[in-house]
């Protein structure tokens, strides 16, 4: 089955901790798993095929209903899974044989295990809330039915991504969410900026998708299958080099989808899409697909230290990168986007820490899904109140004007900075603690510093939006959003506060054990309580700095120009775009230009040169046809003489 394994030394270390997937067949309510995907897919098909005008009266109800139906099914499946023994919590459902070509077969199959179960709840739950919110947010949009069609398409693709039992299926979902993301970022395509942003997201994601495609191919070449079950059983036969290559390729894929450095540049532009899209796709679910991929591929990463270290480095760099960008943005959605990038950096960091980190990566992913979706929807509610203005310099003193939005946003804010007791406190604390214990000082300090910076920029957002003086534009009369928008906010706010309950009695680590393996107890140089205190102190410092520099000061209505180099760099997304442009885009441009010249001069020159040579030649030859019958007779005679002569020469010789 594997040719590479014979030449490379087999792996021995760590083999005891990585669980091999032994699924059981789905039964009972779990045999309805396919319906979880089918419902939103059906919604998307009906709405998009029937068209905007025909579905106008009921498209939003259908779209929301299908996702809520999926949520109910996910809940039932979740409880069914909980009711099983720990050893039997991995369930597969074979749907049909998808691809069969020679030795290559891929089944369309579902794998439902504790990891997928949590994702299902997050996607359909938060997704359902965002659908409800969108009913209000998109109410005055002519193309609301299409919006819901795209949202359903996204949810269906995302569910395929997390439920597929092989890499090819993951790839299908991976591309599906990419497509939905593209369609939704560019939803207001009449704005050139939105169209360009959609294109940019698509192109940058393509780079990551190459990693996904090559990784899948390499997995098949090595193991003869793309199914998780087959690969996890055969990992020990593959060589170290193959494992590292697989790990790095999937990391590239994760970087593209999750907007990690160096493929981070698309996420900030993606904020051109409608705010519910930013909340659902570019905060809560799709951008966490990279983290899912790394955790799902734990049976690969556990065997390759190089790739794991690369994941940690990417995570640590991105969490600081995004945080610094978040500090300088005046656009509320871009500040939140920088924050999303940074928080996903935390998750990647945790996922790179190996068996100790996976559960906390997923834990932070869930809590982040709650509080970031909450804050994005809150930002949308604020924009709704401020006539779609996104510039925080023209906000201020909104806490009285939009009290529900303010309170729910505040819950999200307290959760993200890690205020003791709120969900983000527990999840981030665990990640930083594990980083110190498992990866050493540098990653730990980066994560700690990131927590301080997070506290600074989130406090800045909070102060600029809800406190201080009114800096509103003339004619703006902020008003609270309708309850169809505020109720989802309240639910998400409650989840932001209570998300920490997942950690109660180490529930989440125990729950994920069948997927990621048994975690031992790691030794810390200092007690966890000290680390928690240090983190909380760092957060307090960040908040204090924001209070003194932003809260106390007057905020000018236009961004000051004479600022430090760091601020300028952060405003320009740390020159990520400039870097891409000078390193990739310009040389690519020149290369393509040269190719065009070569094509024009070289290839075309040869082809049309041959053509004109023949044209010139025939121009001369046609002169032979004079029209005089006697000259033809002469040439016939000469020809006959020639033939006769040739015959004589041959016969006599």
């Amino acid at each position: 089955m594997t040719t590479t394994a014979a030449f490379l030394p087999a792996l021995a270390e760590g083999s005891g901790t990585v669980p091999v997937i032994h699924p059981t067949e789905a039964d009972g309510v779990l045999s309805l798993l396919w319906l979880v995907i089918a419902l939103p897919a059906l919604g998307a098909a009906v709405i998009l095929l029937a068209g905007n005008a025909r579905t106008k009266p009921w498209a939003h109800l259908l779209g929301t209903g299908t996702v809520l139906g999926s949520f109910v099914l996910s809940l039932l499946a979740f409880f069914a899974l909980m009711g099983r023994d720990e050893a039997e919590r991995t369930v597969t459902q074979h749907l049909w044989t998808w691809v069969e070509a020679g030795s290559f077969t891929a089944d369309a199959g579902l794998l439902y295990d504790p990891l997928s179960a949590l994702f299902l709840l997050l996607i359909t739950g938060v997704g359902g809330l965002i659908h409800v919110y969108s009913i209000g947010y998109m109410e005055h949009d002519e193309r609301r039915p299409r919006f819901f069609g795209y949202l359903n398409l996204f949810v269906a693709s995302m569910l395929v991504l997390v439920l597929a039992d092989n890499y090819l299926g993951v790839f299908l979902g991976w591309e599906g969410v990419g497509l939905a993301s593209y369609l939704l970022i560019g939803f207001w395509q009449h704005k050139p900026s939105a169209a360009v942003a959609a294109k940019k997201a698509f192109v940058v994601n393509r780079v990551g998708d190459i990693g996904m495609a090559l990784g899948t191919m390499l997995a098949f070449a090595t193991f003869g299958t793309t199914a998780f079950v087959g690969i996890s059983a055969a990992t020990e036969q593959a060589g170290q080099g193959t494992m590292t290559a697989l790990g790095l390729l999937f990391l590239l894929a994760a970087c593209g989808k999750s907007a990690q450095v160096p493929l981070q540049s698309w996420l900030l532009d993606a904020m051109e899409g409608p705010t519910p899209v930013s909340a659902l796709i570019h905060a809560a679910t799709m951008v966490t697909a990279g983290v899912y991929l790394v955790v799902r591929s734990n049976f690969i990463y556990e065997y390759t230290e190089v790739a794991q270290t690369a994941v940690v480095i990417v995570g640590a760099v991105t969490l600081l990168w995004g945080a610094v960008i978040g500090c300088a943005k005046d656009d509320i959605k871009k500040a939140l986007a920088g924050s999303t990038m940074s928080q996903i950096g935390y998750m990647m960091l945790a996922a790179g820490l190996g068996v100790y980190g996976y559960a906390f990566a997923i834990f932070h992913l869930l809590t982040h899904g709650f509080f970031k979706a909450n804050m994005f929807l809150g930002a949308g509610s604020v924009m709704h109140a401020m006539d779609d203005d996104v510039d925080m310099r023209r906000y201020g003193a909104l806490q009285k004007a939009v009290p529900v939005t303010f309170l729910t946003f505040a819950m999200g804010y307290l959760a993200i900075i890690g205020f003791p007791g709120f969900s983000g406190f527990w999840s981030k604390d665990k990640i930083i603690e594990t980083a110190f214990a498992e990866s050493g000082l540098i990653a730990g300090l980066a994560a700690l510093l990131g927590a301080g910076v997070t506290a600074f920029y989130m406090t800045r957002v909070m102060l600029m939006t809800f406190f201080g003086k009114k800096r509103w534009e003339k004619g703006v009369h902020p008003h609270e959003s309708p309850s169809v928008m505020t109720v989802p906010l309240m639910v998400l706010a409650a989840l932001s506060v209570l998300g920490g309950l997942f950690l109660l009695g180490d529930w989440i680590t125990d729950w994920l054990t069948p997927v990621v393996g048994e975690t031992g107890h790691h030794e810390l140089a200092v007690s966890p309580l000290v680390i928690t205190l240090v983190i909380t102190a760092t957060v307090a410092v960040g908040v204090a700095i924001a209070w003194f520099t932003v809260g106390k000061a007057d905020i000018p209505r236009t961004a000051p120009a004479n600022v430090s180099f760091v601020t300028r760099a952060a405003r320009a997304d740390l020159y990520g775009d400039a870097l891409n442009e000078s390193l990739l885009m310009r040389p690519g441009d020149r290369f393509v230009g040269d190719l065009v010249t070569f094509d024009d001069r070289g290839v075309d020159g040869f082809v049309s040169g041959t053509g004109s040579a023949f044209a010139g030649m025939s121009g001369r030859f046609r002169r032979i046809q004079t029209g005089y019958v006697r000259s033809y007779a002469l040439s016939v005679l000469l020809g006959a003489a020639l033939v006769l002569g040739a015959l004589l020469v041959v016969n006599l010789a």
Partner: protein
Amino acid sequence: MTTEFLALSAILFTIGCVGVLTRRNAIVVFMCVELMLNACNLAFVTFARQHGNLDGQVAAFFVMVVAAAEVVVGLAIIMTIFRTRRSASVDDASLLKY
């Protein structure tokens, strides 16, 4: 005897050939073509006699039949050209060219 007949055939063929190439009058050209055909016939018959079988004679009959048909078509064409152009010169009818 064979040599003399073949020599006569060659002389007749050459006269016909030169006539076709040098004369402008279509009727004369036509007659020269006939001369060449009959020179060939003479050669065929000579060889038939030489070999003592009938193959050459059969070929000569074929040539005569073809020549008769050719005369019918050829003279008709020359007639038509003469009627439209008032000339039977082959050099005048030189419009079909490059």
